[in-house]
């Protein structure tokens, strides 16, 4: 079985994003970029399934600018076998990403497509579900446990009321939550080896997908800033404040 792992290049999660003064977006010039943390978890899970003998090949895919190659090299250094970059300088929306991934899935015929549950830049939380719909296959979103049994997979999902388990026929789409695993760091020898692993470059046109946006972003602004309030000296002062608020 093959596992397809889409990975996205995003602002590093430690960086505080700054909105551009002209309201056109978030300033990404000279900002550290990394693999989306949820995608790292997806790569790790795929590698673990391969190590457990449940999968033979892991293919990492990214849709984005030429620089997304770095993100793919990271996935290869972690343990993916080969990579596909679908190069475009446009911001590609989840629906178009899902269409491209569907075309790739048709060529590669993976048993599982493993994605992050959300990207920390746009926070859309859509791509995996859209891909599953377009493929006509089941989905296990927000996964905190993945177990393959023959031609089905059990996925434990983090839902609002607790943990839900579903059983899906393969092929299936899975999106990862934070507690699924802790991604490994790539070792130096593996980073060197990754440079020699195959990386194909394609374009959205190769897959016949129109990536023009359906949503126009007219303005990006700062959220209302919260002013720091008051420091109190001791618990008594805190109690007085809380009582003034009508609490207790």
């Amino acid at each position, binding site marked *: 079985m093959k596992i397809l792992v889409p990975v996205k290049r995003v602002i590093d999660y430690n960086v505080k994003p700054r909105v551009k003064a002209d309201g056109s977006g978030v300033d990404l010039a000279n900002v550290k970029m990394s693999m989306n943390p949820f995608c790292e978890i997806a790569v790790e899970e795929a590698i673990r399934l391969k190590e457990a003998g449940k999968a033979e090949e892991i293919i990492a895919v990214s849709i984005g600018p030429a620089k997304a190659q770095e993100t793919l090299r990271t996935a290869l250094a972690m343990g993916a076998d080969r990579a596909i970059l679908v190069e475009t300088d446009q911001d590609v929306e989840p629906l178009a990403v899902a269409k491209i991934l569907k075309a790739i899935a048709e060529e590669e015929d993976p048993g599982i497509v493993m994605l992050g549950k959300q990207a920390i830049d746009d926070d859309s939380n859509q791509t995996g*579900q859209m891909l599953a719909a377009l493929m006509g296959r089941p989905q296990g*979103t927000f996964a905190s446990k993945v177990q393959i049994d023959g031609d089905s997979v059990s996925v434990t999902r983090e839902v609002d009321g*607790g943990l*839900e388990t579903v*059983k899906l026929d393969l092929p299936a789409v899975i999106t990862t939550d934070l507690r699924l695993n802790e991604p490994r760091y790539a070792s130096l020898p593996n980073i060197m080896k990754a440079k020699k692993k195959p990386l194909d470059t394609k374009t959205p046109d190769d897959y016949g997908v129109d990536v023009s946006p359906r949503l126009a*972003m*007219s303005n*990006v602004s700062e959220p209302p800033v919260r002013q*720091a309030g008051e420091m109190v000296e001791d618990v008594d002062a805190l109690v007085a404040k809380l009582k003034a608020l009508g609490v207790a």
Partner: protein
Amino acid sequence: MTALVIAEHNGGEIAEATLSTVTAAAQLGGDVHVLVAGGDDAGAAAGAAAQIAGVAKVLRAVDAAYAHQLPENVAPLIVSLADSYDAILAPATTTGKNVMPRVAALLDVMQVSDIIAIESPTTFKRPIYAGNAIATVESSDSKRVITVRTTAFEKAEATGGSASVDEVSGPTGDGNSEFVKLDAVESDRPELTGAGIIVSGGRALKDGETFEQYITPLADKLGAAIGASRAAVDAGYVPNDYQVGQTGKIVAPEVYIAIGISGAIQHLAGMKDSKTIVAINKDPDAPIFQVADIGLVADLFNAVPELTEKL
């Protein structure tokens, strides 16, 4: 212009998240219909939905295939009803986030996720980058598929309406997925996303027992819900559905009390719209103090028991 709200319900009751979604739907300016899809208990829930103020019509779809809101089964039903609607909305809960992108893809529509304001029937505001930026987006699709951040919209009145209830049926999926079980977290406490007061604990609480020993009595005293940082959840002090933040729950209570939580941006993303934020932390430079209305620099192991006693 008519909007369809996908109801979330449990044991015959409509979830509060649905009430906020009805308010958002009404702001689009047309009629509001509500779809209640489910197993046998959908009947009672549909009755409750018909009482919601401002709802013109309820669609009731009862089938065992819809019982656990499996997206493979519910999305085709919603798509089969979509022709009559200009907008389809659901709360941005784990259920809504699971089903709606599937609906959007089948309709070839780009979903607008997690809206916090409606500027016009096609223009919305939504937070991006963990709430560090607010984007205004306009949809050019023929229909809008929307998830709603429920803390950003008032709840519609649960009673006072008298909508008609129509029976509907539709496709039930290909049967390639199956619900196995739900390990629900049982609690008598107020639900996190609807609570007026939240007491939240972080990594500083050391372990599950200590968390329980220090946080629970204070929450009990205040009739508060209990939340946690991801660090506390990851370390196993409390179950995952206590997590507040970018990738946990988004809350906006009257009072949020953060204890031993540093205030990472991912945590702030989930609680910075709270009306009053109280922070107790032993580090005067903890970033949580930059957003707190009331801050106390103290060791929680002394301050929290004293606070619990004096309230």
